[in-house]
């Protein structure tokens, strides 16, 4: 652990959250506003990338930078939860349930797929 790695975490972490903002906005604007597709896209793609990174079995610094800094800042648990609560608050119970179930199922599947690709690369 040294200052360069820490600086890397800060820098890459910042880029990850900006990327989320861009992807979330682009997907949300295209696929409509009734369901939080943007957050779903971000979380599922993030899960797949993290699966891929762990599959690649990188060194500890590289794993920290790619996993915690990049994917950690790119994906968002809090937005997923808040948007589910907002849907329930507006009595969109079907969408709220779907948001939880679909994110879980696709997320686990994406992580597994990413790992599979990583191991075989």
């Amino acid at each position, binding site marked *: 652990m040294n200052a360069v790695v820490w600086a890397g975490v800060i820098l890459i972490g910042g880029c990850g959250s900006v990327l989320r903002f861009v992807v979330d*906005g682009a997907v*949300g604007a295209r696929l409509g*506003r009734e369901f*939080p597709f943007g*957050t779903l896209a971000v979380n599922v793609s993030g899960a797949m990338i993290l699966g891929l990174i762990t599959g690649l079995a990188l060194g500890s610094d590289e794993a920290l930078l790619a996993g915690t800094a990049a994917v950690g800042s790119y994906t968002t648990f809090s*937005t997923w939860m808040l948007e589910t609560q*907002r849907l*329930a608050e*507006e*009595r969109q119970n079907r969408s709220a349930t779907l948001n939880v179930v679909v994110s879980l199922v696709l997320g686990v599947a994406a992580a597994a797929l990413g790992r599979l690709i990583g191991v075989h690369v």
Partner: protein
Amino acid sequence: MNEDCLKLTVYFGERKRAGHRFVADALLDLYGRHEIATSVLLRGVEGFGLKHHLRTDSSLTLSEDLPAVAIAVDTRERIEALLDDAAELTGSGLVTLERARMQTNEIRAVSLPAELDEATKLTVYLGRQERVYRVPAFIAVCDLLHRRGIAGATTLLGVDGTTHGRRERARFFGRNADVPMMVIAVGSGQQIAGVLPELGGLLRRPLITLERVRVCKRDGELLENPHPLPGSDEHGMALWQKLMIYNSEAALHDGQPIHRAITRQLRRSGASGSTTLRGIWGFHGDHAPHGDRTLQLGRHVPTLTIVIDTPERIAESFAIVDQLTNERGLVTSEMVPAMRATAAENSRGGVRLANHRF
């Protein structure tokens, strides 16, 4: 009762800037400097304008630049004195001027002129922590209005404003005791006139305004269509019209709150714009006053949707609203004697008052 007052309302994006400052701050500073009798800044939850860009709090990503509404009421001279500055600060957005009557400090029994007899909109301006016999003032006022059979009342929470000429801005830490909030009620002229002395008895330093409206729908029942107004007055000044739709977050159309359905259908139909505000407490029709309850996921607070357009377009928009509020909701229409809408380079209307009797 001051008969000759004006209500200046500005609809704009919360993130909109005038130079290096937010329009919201700049406008409220202006009202504070002019010691305007009452002004309130309200934050909306959904809406669109001339550019037809939908802003909504229904998803986190798209809720970055929600609509905001700044209302200022004072005598005609005092509003006219700041009108040009306010319009210039706003830039792109919607500015309307409406006639109102205002009463401050003491409320005496009033005999309303014939034109206010049909239906009247009463707005009561209160402080956030104001209390009446230990009960929050807005709850006491809503209870009184409900007991007297008024058609509906909605309490809106302000985040900035002036009260009796003094600037009161909400802060993150602080009691925010005098930050203004407003209760908007609609009833027949006689009912409102009857309730005024009682309100005067309840409140220590009342500040109220009265405006003429028409109740078009109550509890889903169609009573009257909006006034069929001409496009301009006798002197060729353009006339505009406003619909206000009072509903509840719990009232659904096709599985979504009615106000969301209204915004989407109006936007698709090519209407010029709409703004929805979410209240904190209120009622319409026979339902007892209500708000949100703790430990209840679904929301119950009242909502208020405002639609301003040409009289011709309002007739079309009303048909849509009528269809979507076939079970619940209170719909009123009003004449707007001056409106200026600006989007980027194009602008329509102006801030000179039209004169039309009906």
